[in-house]
Each structure stands twice: as structure tokens, then as C-alpha cells.
């Protein structure tokens, strides 16, 4: 059967975010601008990053994502994320390895509500006619400098975003447990562009992936969307294959 990750999340539980409960309220996030760069990475450079419950993507790839949220319950902010392409059973997922938000309030809420491995820093999303650029600084040091080069219009229906997974501690069945949490935003597209990914600076260690090496660029997109951060619907045991260890926390989005 397919390979599994090797990371025992319970052994690093103290380093993970802790949620007070799994009753996180949804955030509505209209007119967000989302820059995503997909880049293949050597499988060996992802060793130790993938929980035992999940399969590696074939080939391995990461998603560098910068999003400018013009409205949110904590005001406007820009968010940068590194996600590792993976499989939760049969389903493609992006495992969140690291994130930086442009405001302390956003970082705090995203960590406490959805388990983002996030800190506050300087995150810039800049649009030029020939490129869309993203830069991230932490403690004055540039940890990401990237761009979508030569953006060309495409249809929103050409773009597929895959759901995210975070790793966190949260109360379940009367005790705090380490778990994987599915974060599955929805999207309504207003504008979509596609171009070539370019990365000038990438400090892997600053994204909690010290051995990660960027290899072949796949594609980049920049889209304007209405999106959200929904209530938590599924959590997964980090040690069991997800088809055995998935728990549904609530039925659907109807209750949002």
C-alpha cells in the first residue's frame, strides 16, 4: 500500500497549538486576493514532516501561499503559508507547515481557532502589471521573497484549491488530544490569473521545514475570491491511517 509519513505528532505535542475547544466559529472573508505557487520538492527533503496518518503526494510538492484579506473579524491582514501536498486517505490535502500573519490579532486567532502553526511578522502582497509579489519577514529577516511572473487571465473554473490540514491539541472525548484538523474553505471566484512561480528567497527553517528544498516550479495562480475559514468539521487521529481515524465533529456547513 502507499507510503505513510513517519512523524509521530504526539511526540511533539508540546510544540503544537492548543485549541480551547472544537467549536470554532466561521470567518467570512470577502474579496480576498490569493497568490499560490506550487513547487515540486525532493521526497527525501520532506522526511519527518508528514504525520504517520498521511500519505506523501507523488511527486512531493509544496504550496507557497500569500493571501490579502481585505475584511475579517480581526480587520484586514495578509497571511503567508507553507503547505505540503499530501494525501489524507484518498483525498488531496495541504498540510500546513508554517505560517506568518501581518497582525498579532490575526496570528493569535488563527492559532487558537484552527491550529495554524503561525507567528506574526511582516507580510507584503504587491501587485505589478508584470508580476504579483510576496515577501515575508520575521524578526527583520526575509524568509520568503517570491512572485508570480507574467500573470495571464484564466477562468476560475481552471483553478482547484485543495483543503488544508493543521496539527494541534484540542479537547475531544473529555481529554486534550493531539489531532489533525481539516480546514476546508470554500471559494467564489471573481478573477483568476496564472503564471510562472519564482522564488528568490526561501528560508526553510523559518517555515518549520529545515531540510526542505525547492526544486521544479509547477504553476502559480493569483485569484480574487470570496472565501471563509469554516467551522471545524473533521478531525483525524495523527497515528492511524485517516480512513480509520477520522471523526466528524459536525454535519455540514448548514449550521454556520
Amino acid at each position, binding site marked *: *500500500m*502507499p*507510503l505513510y509519513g513517519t512523524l509521530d505528532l504526539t511526540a511533539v505535542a508540546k510544540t503544537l497549538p492548543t485549541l480551547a475547544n472544537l467549536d470554532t466559529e466561521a470567518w467570512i472573508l470577502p474579496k480576498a486576493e490569493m497568490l499560490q505557487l*506550487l513547487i*515540486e520538492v525532493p521526497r527525501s527533503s520532506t522526511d519527518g514532516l508528514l504525520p504517520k496518518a498521511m*500519505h506523501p*503526494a*507523488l*511527486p512531493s*510538492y509544496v504550496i507557497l501561499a500569500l493571501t490579502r484579506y481585505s475584511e475579517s473579524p480581526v480587520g484586514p491582514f495578509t497571511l503567508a503559508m507553507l503547505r505540503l*501536498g499530501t*494525501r489524507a*486517505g*484518498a*483525498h*488531496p490535502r495541504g498540510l500546513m507547515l508554517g505560517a506568518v500573519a501581518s497582525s498579532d490579532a490575526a496570528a493569535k486567532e488563527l492559532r487558537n481557532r484552527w491550529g495554524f502553526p503561525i507567528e506574526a511578522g511582516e507580510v507584503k502582497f504587491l501587485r505589478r502589471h508584470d508580476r504579483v509579489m510576496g515577501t515575508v519577514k520575521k524578526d527583520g529577516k526575509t524568509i520568503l521573497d517570491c512572485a508570480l511572473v507574467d500573470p495571464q487571465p*484564466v*477562468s476560475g*473554473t*481552471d*483553478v*482547484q484549491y*485543495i483543503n488544508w490540514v493543521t496539527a494541534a491539541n484540542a479537547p475531544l472525548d473529555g481529554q486534550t488530544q493531539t489531532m489533525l484538523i481539516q480546514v476546508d474553505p470554500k471559494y467564489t471566484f471573481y478573477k*483568476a490569473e*496564472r503564471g510562472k512561480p519564482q522564488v528568490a528567497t526561501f528560508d526553510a527553517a523559518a517555515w518549520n521545514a529545515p531540510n526542505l528544498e525547492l526544486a*521544479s516550479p*509547477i*504553476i502559480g*495562480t493569483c485569484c480574487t475570491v470570496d472565501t471563509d475559514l469554516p467551522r471545524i468539521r473533521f478531525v483525524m487521529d495523527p497515528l492511524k*491511517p485517516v*480512513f*480509520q481515524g477520522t471523526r466528524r465533529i459536525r454535519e455540514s456547513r448548514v449550521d454556520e
Partner: protein
Amino acid sequence: MKFGLFYEISIPRPWTPEKERTVYNNCLEQVKLADELGFDHVWAVEHHFLEEYSHCSAPELFLTACAVLTKRIQVGHGIVVCVPEFNHPIKIAEKTATLDILSGGRLHVGTGRSATWTELGGFGANPDTTKKSWDEFVRCLPKMWMQETFSYQGEFWSMPERTILPKPYQKPHPPMWVAVTSPGTEIDAAERGLGSLGLSFAGFEEQEKKIKEYRRRIQSCEPVGAFVNEQVATTNFLFCHEDEKYGVEIGKKLGNTFNYLATQLISTREVFSSPSYQSLGLLPALRRAATGPDASEQQTEGMAYGDPARIIRAVKKWESLGVDCINFILNANEVVPQAEVMASLKLFAKEVMPVFAKKPANVAAAAAE
């Protein structure tokens, strides 16, 4: 109704030399038996880099071995990837012609464009242009086979005038097909007069719609070859056993394993935003079916596993929808022991095939004894 075998050649880890050889030998043994039992086709895919799911990257070699080991069964190259980074069209014409000669005119040529980023990215191919390069290739191939000399100036490849040799044994040329996974490809097949080689596991209703549209459109086609190959083939799993419950249990295990391995592939759309890959191909249905390798949920309707009576009901339903041929996947990751695969083939030939045979029913039955 015709029956065929369909090989992805799925090999579980760890990939020791003996394991890969054993699986290939198992497949050849099955093909030899299928030939004796009266099966019509053996198809082999072209896939690259698809760990465990398919180690069939050189299908023309496997099919050559099949042709040499058998007498009657037709060999289907299903499919040749018609993308220049994968296969040069001259080499496709030459290799298929050679295989047609070696098989004594038993070759069918399936065509397609690959659906996974795993493969397209591996060869450095541009997903935006695969439909267009496929279109060029399928229009060139019949001419390369039939014309004394051939020259071409195209968008994806060109060549000065040369004589492409050898020529196929079949005249005017082998039947041509196209792999149909994405919605709408059945129309591409029909408009070009190509057979529809269905590779998805869609249910009856969806298949019926596709087949009707294919039959309607092909009436006014402009064939790319010298003749219209109006045939609809579909893919299924086969496990036939006297005991229905056991047959269903093993059949589901086979289907679940295959589906779960398939869902590990990176479909092009998942990572490469392109108008050329609007659909995820066969993956959505597989993901619905493949909740896990040991899932107990009911799979897609119409699967050919269980006892002969159950399988006959499924095949009759496919026949009523207009399917001409069902190609069977017999194993995935070797979850079905070889002896049981062989017994399943024999029982199917003895109890099921005669029901659908145009020839006297006792021929296939006698072969199964």
C-alpha cells in the same frame, strides 16, 4: 459482447526484482489462459512513475510477449500517450506496425494524452497542449501506416519525406481507439471515428448518456483513419466464484485496492490550473468509492464480481446500454492470489461467456474444462 483483460500491472512494495518478475509472469500466465478460454482482447496501459498503481511503462514489450505466447487473443496498446515528450510519432508508427506484424494482425491501437501531473510533469510536458498534440498524432498515424512515403509540418512535430517502416500487417491499418475518462472525450472519439475505450467506472446512467451521444455523433464523423471503428468498451473488475458472498468480498477488495492506489496519483488539475484539464478524470468517482483499501461500502454499480449469475446480470445490463466490450482488471497489488485469478477466469469462461457468445456456446465452455 466481447470480453478482454486490462492490465495496469500493479506491483506492491517492496519492489524486489523477483516480485516485479513474478507479477509480470502472473499476467502473462493469465493472458495465455484467457487466449485458450476465448477472451477477445488483452489491453495494456502506458503509465510512468505511478508507484504501485501501474508499473506498465513499456506496454509494447509486454504486449509483444503476449502476442508470442498466444494464438487468437487481440492485443490492445491502451493507450499510447500521444504527447511528443512521451513518444515520438514516428516511433509510435514503427513500434505499432512491428507489434501488428509479430501478432499476425491482432493489434488495436489506443490513443490518449495522460491525465496525471505525476506523468506529464515527469516528462516536462505542457498540460495545456496535450489535447492538441493528441489530435495531431491521431491524424498522422493512419497516413504513416498506409502511405508509401510520408512528410509532415505540424505544430507539435514535423518531418521531411521518408518511408516509415515496417507497415502494419492489417490492411488498411489496425483499429484505433481513444481512452475516455474525462467528460466529453467520448465526443472526441466519435467525431474522429475512433473506438471509445472507457477507462472510468461510472454507473449505468452516466455511461448510457455517454454511449448514446457517442453513437449519435459517430454517424456524422470524419474518420481520421481509413475506416470508422464504432465500438464502445468499458472497464470493470472481474472476480468470479461459485460462492456469491465470497466472490463479492474478494471483488470488493480488488476494487477498493485499485481505487485507493489510483487516488494517490496527482491529477493534472489538482496542481496545474489549465483549461485543458477541467475535469479530474476518473478520480472523483474513485475517491467516492475509495474511502479506504478495506472499505465495506457498496462500490459503483455494475461490477463483475460475485457468482456467475450475479455477473451475468451485470454484463446483461452493460450490454443493454450498448457496450460492445468489457475489459476486466483482474488484480491490484496482488491482493487476489494467482490461483484464484486463474480459477475466476475459468469459471467466467465456463458459466458467463457462453451466455453472451455469438458462436456456439459450447466452444468457450469446452475450453474452460
